[in-house]
């Protein structure tokens, strides 16, 4: 049995290798693009892919963005340039190796035109080199790590843009909220060992000190920690008025559930960020989530038709949105399609040629694009987002009541600015 399989596998592989040496048909259109062109035959779909965290505790984050992409495709009628749109997905697992493997798989597929993703900054760090080198461009709806779009970010990131904000903004907004609105002067932070959390709490700490406050404690736990009481006791010993823990769902749930049991922290104000802006936090954190603050992109500052988007979301999926970046994913997809329509060469018979460099440049040249999240323009280093951060307060700890965009009973509800 074993030998038979090896024999057959070898035959298959050998035939592939031999085929590599065979002649290929010459295209009618001469592709002069430095990175090559994607050729789409008349009957074939335009293939785009979404890559992000689609499994594990943070799956709701990736699923939320994916829905934004799907709604954008629906709005295009499922077609672009008269071809059907085919959306496939890859799971990055919110880790660098996961991102690297997902990216490698995507990079091998020469039928791909463009990508939306990733969800977690870690995935991008692992996978962006493969994507850029394959000539693909990816627009992330939810990476927030500052260095990803900094001007000196390196050539590996030539194919990377994002419609999400950078945490440099979010940390600052939270600091301003704490100091100016809540009027606290002593704050403590906690991170869960993820690159996202550690960077974000540091931005907050630096900005808060600049405003005149003091950071009394900066602690950290491991991602799989469950017993938070000792670390919370240490934080309590420092006497903070505000406790900021911009972590992911696993740690966020445990901290919120246990914090009021620790002497000294019964009245401390608690605030988290977009990593726990999901109904899963209410499940894990229980009754203590009521009154908790969460920072996130400001939904009411979206200048586009966000209400219309929400209506479409409700119609297609029932229930409310899962997390924060669905509209950003919607805009990212539309930016991709707009650039595609601009640079694609369409033959009379319906064959499409998409020059890769031209597509990449068109994406980066996006100016005054009327998206749902705002009027977007992309900087040369890939920042396309219109960063307005708001702070929300959780009104009800029942996970079934989660509906941040409801007009009548939003939960959580925006309170700042």
């Amino acid at each position, binding site marked *: 049995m074993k030998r038979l399989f090896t024999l057959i596998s070898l035959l298959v592989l050998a035939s592939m290798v031999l085929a590599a040496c065979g002649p290929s048909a010459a295209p009618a259109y001469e592709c002069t693009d430095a990175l090559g062109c994607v050729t789409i035959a008349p009957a074939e779909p335009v293939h785009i892919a979404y890559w992000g965290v689609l499994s594990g505790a943070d799956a709701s984050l990736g699923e939320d963005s994916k829905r934004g992409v799907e709604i954008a495709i629906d709005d295009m009628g499922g077609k672009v340039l008269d071809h059907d749109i085919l959306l496939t997905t890859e799971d990055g697992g919110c880790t660098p190796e996961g991102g690297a493997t997902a990216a490698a798989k995507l990079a091998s597929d020469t039928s791909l035109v463009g990508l939306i993703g990733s969800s977690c900054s870690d995935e991008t*760090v692992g996978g962006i080199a493969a994507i850029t080198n394959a000539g693909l461009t990816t627009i992330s709806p939810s990476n927030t790590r500052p260095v990803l779009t900094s001007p000196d970010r390196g050539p590996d990131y030539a194919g990377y843009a994002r419609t999400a904000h950078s945490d440099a903004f979010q940390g600052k907004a939270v600091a301003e909220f704490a100091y100016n609105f809540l009027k606290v002067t002593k704050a403590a932070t906690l991170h869960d060992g993820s690159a996202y959390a550690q960077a974000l709490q540091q931005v907050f700490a630096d900005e808060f000190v600049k405003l005149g406050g003091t950071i009394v404690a900066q602690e950290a736990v491991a991602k799989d920690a469950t017993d938070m009481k000792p670390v919370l006791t240490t934080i309590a010993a420092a006497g903070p008025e505000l406790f900021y823990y911009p972590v992911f769902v696993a740690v966020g749930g445990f901290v919120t559930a246990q914090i009021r049991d620790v002497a000294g922290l019964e009245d401390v104000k608690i605030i988290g960020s977009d990593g726990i802006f999901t109904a899963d936090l209410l499940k894990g954190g229980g009754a203590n989530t009521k009154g908790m603050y969460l920072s996130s992109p400001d939904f009411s500052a979206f200048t586009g038709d966000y209400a219309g988007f929400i209506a479409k979301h409700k119609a297609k999926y029932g229930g409310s949105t899962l997390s924060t970046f669905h509209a950003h994913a919607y805009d990212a997809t539309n930016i991709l399609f707009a650039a595609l329509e601009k640079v694609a060469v369409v033959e009379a018979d319906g064959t499409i040629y998409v020059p890769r460099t031209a597509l990449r440049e068109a994406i980066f040249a996006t100016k005054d694009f009327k998206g749902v999240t705002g009027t977007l323009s992309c900087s040369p280093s890939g920042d396309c987002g219109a960063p307005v951060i708001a702070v929300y307060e959780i009104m009800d700890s029942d996970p079934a009541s989660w509906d941040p965009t409801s007009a009548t009973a939003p939960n959580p509800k925006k309170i700042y600015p």
Partner: protein
Amino acid sequence: MKKENFLWSAVKTGLIFGAIAIFLCFLGMVEVFSKRDVVEKILTLGQFVLLATMVSAGLVASRRTSSLLEKNTPVSNLVAGLVAGLLTGLVLALLVVIGAQINLRAVFLNASPTLYKLLTFDKGVGNVWILPTIGVVAGLIGAAYLLLPQILSRPITRSIFFVIFMALFSGLFRVIMINQGAGMSRAAKYIFGQTGVTSPGALIFFFGVILITIFWDFRGKAIQSGIASLPKGGQLSLRVIAIIVIVLIILLLPLASGPFIAQVIVTVALFVLMGLGLNITLGFAGLLDLGFVAFYAIGAYTVGLLTSYGPFGLQHIPFWVAVPIAVLVSMGAVFMLGLPVLGIRGDYLAIATLGFGEIVRLLAGSDFLAPFFGGPQGIIGIQKPCLGLLEPFVKVDVPRICNGIELGKPQDIYYIAVASALLIAFAAWRLRESRLGRAWMSIREDEDVAEALGVNLIQTKLLAYMLGAAMAGLGGAIFATLIGSIFATSMQLLVSINVVSLIIVGGMGSIPGVIVGAIALIGLPELLREISEFRYLLYGMTLIIMMITKPEGLWPSQATRRELHHAEVEAGVKV
């Protein structure tokens, strides 16, 4: 009297397989697999799984009947198969009926309306009689299969497995073939659909394998003896041709298949490297090291720190210089991680090394050592290998320019990884035949006797650790370059467990076994990413089944095979 027994056994078999079918439904496997096709538009993978369960019910019942009745009555076998299949179908039908009344979904997420729709082919609860009917037919097929002569049943089994294999990997093969050019592209679309094989493709594969099997059955022996009777020169040249073909395939594969397969092979090659290392530590010397990932981490971090152009890079030296240093540092780390535990034996050694591995990971990712190791932000910006000279280092976050060929893509690292793996495999092979290798094996068998015979325990064990660590360090170094960044979260206990599993599943102490184990446990799950939901479930199941049926591994060394079956005989087969 016996007649009662075999029917009753068939009933029991049917119930057990019915439970298994429900288990698969509740897992969500049936639903998820329904999105994948075996044969496009004809058979989904989910349907296949359920069918396979029913056929297996019939098969097992038939086999039990044969052993119960001790004589050959095909009719009883068929009846048993029928009964078993019927019961499996009935149990499933029961699920649908109950599910329509009670909301099972409150507990089992996958007991959803979608599932019931799938089970009744979308025709509602009234149509539930379909399931037992299919069960009866499937059970009969299963039972009949056992009655077929081997000449017929073997080719059929192989063909079916081959079709399934092609269906699972259809996405992959399709992409590869499309990349080759118009001709291959048309062929690809003819036999591979988007989610499975097409009907013509299935027929081609099925009958193709049957023909090949029948051909081999009839002419195989003749061919083999033909080759054996060739003069030595002839045999040698055949071997050389085979080797050349294999080498060509290895060299050209990344060009044909693109970065994804190259990346998967690199990952497999790295695990082969680690496996070879652990093979020395555990397979030859019998030291159960569950903290093996620590050496991998040390190798990766050393290369990272030495070559990175990011803020944590220490020296900015080229890859080719950094790798030997990383290997040496890993070997040096043995003095901290291996030396203390030299006196510990057996399971305690496993736990102690597990502890060390976790301590290394926690320290590397901690804020405490962040100024040195990057903490949660990790080390990014690792310079790619350059076949040529590197321009001098300019400033932080600017990569050094390569005056030559930069080996940046997975396809390039592929060559480095595969070459290293083959080199180390060769070295491991020579080591095993050497005096040192024999000393190791004597320690593995019995430490005290070995010492009495003059083997220096400390030295020999230390060498086993050091060589194992060196290989793991090499693997880590290549990994760091492949991903271009290192995070402490990659250095989990899971990696050590994977390495131990793969050398045992492949065959402990056996070098080809390590390669086979790595392909089976690391390569396959990576390639089958669509099934990734159930990857670890199947992984766990595979481990259990392998240990029960073939504990000596897939490609064992001669000694292990003798050892394990000897132990089996000694202990008695069933307790």
